[in-house]
C-alpha cells in the first residue's frame, strides 16, 4: 500500500474536439442542478490559426490542494489514491476554496437563507463522498460513486476521441508519451490487409 498510485486527469489538447460531451455526461450522471458544471470545456486562443485548442477542465485533484489548506472548517480530505473530496455536511459555503483554487473549480448553489451560498460542489472524480459507499444519500448529495465499482469516471469513459484520460498518474503519462511519439508516424495510406491480399504493389 506504500506505493499507492495517484489518480489524475489529463486532457490531450491534440484530441479534444470541443464536443462538450464530458460536461453533459457529468451533469446527467450526477443529476447536477442547473447552473452547476463540475466539468467544462474551454477553448484557448480562440480564432488564432494553429494555436487554437480546447481542453476539458474540472477539479484537478492537486497534490498540494490549496482548497484543503484554506478551508476554515477542514471539510476536505485527500484519499490515498489522491482524489480530493469534501464533506458537504461540514462545508459552510464560505467560498474560500474558490479563492484558493487556480482552476475555478468550486461552485456554490444559492440555496441558503436570503440567497446565501450553499455547500460547495465540485468534481469528485466519480468517487462520491464520505458517506456510506453507494448509499442512496451519497448518490443524492455527491452523485455516482463509480470508482468504488471499478468503473472509469463518466466524463473520460464517454470521451469519443479519448482526449480526456484518467487513472494512475504514471499510466496516464505513459499513454500520453506514446501518443506524442506516434504523432506523425505510422499513418496508414492503404488498408492493413492490402499487401497480403494483393502483394506489395
Amino acid at each position, binding site marked *: 500500500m506504500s506505493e499507492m498510485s495517484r489518480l489524475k486527469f489529463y486532457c490531450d489538447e491534440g484530441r479534444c474536439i470541443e464536443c462538450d460531451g464530458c460536461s453533459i455526461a457529468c451533469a446527467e450522471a450526477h443529476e447536477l442542478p*442547473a*447552473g452547476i*458544471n463540475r466539468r*467544462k470545456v*474551454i*477553448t*484557448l486562443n480562440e480564432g488564432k490559426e494553429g494555436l487554437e485548442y480546447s481542453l476539458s*477542465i474540472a477539479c484537478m485533484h492537486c497534490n498540494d490542494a*490549496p482548497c484543503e*489548506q*484554506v478551508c*476554515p*472548517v*477542514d*471539510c476536505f480530505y485527500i484519499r490515498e489514491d489522491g482524489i480530493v473530496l469534501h*464533506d458537504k*455536511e*461540514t*462545508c*459552510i*459555503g*464560505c*467560498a*474560500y476554496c*474558490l*479563492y*484558493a*483554487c*487556480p*482552476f*475555478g473549480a468550486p*461552485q*456554490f448553489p444559492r440555496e*441558503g*437563507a*436570503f440567497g*446565501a*451560498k450553499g455547500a460547495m460542489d465540485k468534481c469528485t472524480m466519480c468517487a462520491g463522498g464520505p458517506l456510506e459507499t453507494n448509499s442512496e444519500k451519497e448518490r443524492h448529495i455527491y452523485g455516482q460513486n463509480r470508482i468504488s465499482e471499478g468503473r472509469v469516471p463518466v466524463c473520460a469513459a464517454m470521451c469519443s476521441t479519448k482526449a480526456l484520460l484518467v487513472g494512475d498518474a504514471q499510466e496516464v503519462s505513459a499513454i500520453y508519451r506514446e501518443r506524442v511519439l506516434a504523432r506523425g508516424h505510422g499513418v496508414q495510406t492503404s488498408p492493413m490487409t492490402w499487401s497480403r491480399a494483393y502483394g506489395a504493389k
Partner: protein
Amino acid sequence: MKRKMIIIFLALTTAAFAADSAIYGEELITNILGYGKEGSLHLGQWFTVLQGKYFSIGFLVVALGIPAVFLIHYLIIGPKVFSHDRKKIPVFTIFHRVIHWIAGVSFLVLVPTGFIMVFGTTFGGGEFVRICKDLHALSTVLFCIAVVPMLIMWFKEMLPTMDDVKWMMILGGYLSKVKRPIPAGKFNAGQKMWFWVCTFGGILMILTGAVMFFQDFELAIIKSMGLTQIDFLRLSAIVHNILGMAVAALFFTHIYMSMFAIKGAIHSMITGDKEEEEIEILHSTYYKELKKQNKV
C-alpha cells in the same frame, strides 16, 4: 401571447446571465493561465498562505492575548473608580445612544459569529457554523443602518488634536492608579482610534463582506483597474480578515474599558450622563471647556 413572450424573454435573459458569470465564464481561462505567472498579482497564493497559516494565528492572539493582557491589568493596576455622588453631566443624547446600540447589538453578533467562522473546525463546521455565517450576514444590515449616522454625529469631536499625542505618550494614564487629569477632549485618543477603525474600517468590512456574499457579479470600476473578479474576491477576503482582527481587538478593548476598567462607565451609554469626576480626570480638556461655558 404577450405573457408567453415575457416568459421567453425572462428565460433567455436569466440564461444569458448565468453564462456571463464573472468567475466561471470567459474570465476563467485568463484566470487559469495567469495563476502564479509573472506579472500577475499572486493574490491566489497570498490568500492561500495567509488563510492557510496566519489568519487563524492572528485571530487566536486577538481572542486570547487581549483578554489576557486586560486580566493582568485588572489584577495588577485595577479599575478606575470615580465618585458617583457628584453632578451627572449629560454627554450622550438619546440619538447618540440609539445609534450606538444599534451598532453595539450588531457587533455583539458580528464579532462572535466571525470568530466562530475563523475557528470553524473547532466548532465542528456544519449547521451551527452555517447559521453563524447567516447571522453574520444578517447583522451586517443592522450595522449598515448605524454606521453612517455614527460617522456623522461624532465626526467633529473625533478629529485628532494635540491632546491625543499626549494621551498616547502616557497610554491614557491606564498604567497607573493615580488620579491625575488626563489630556483629552470629549473623546480620548483611544476612543478616537476605535471610532475611525469602526466607521471607516467598518464600512470597508461591509463592502468586502458584500463582495464575498454576492460573489459573482461584475463591476466596471474593478474591471477598469485591471482586477479580475476572482482577484477582487481574494483581495476582499484578505482585507476583511486583517480589518476583522483590528476591529475585534478594539471591540474587546472597548468592552473592557466600559465594563471593567472604569467602574460604571457603561451607564453613560444607557442614561446618557457621565459622572463629573470621571470627566474631570479622564477628559480634562473637555471639563475645562464645560467650566468655561458654566455647564459644571
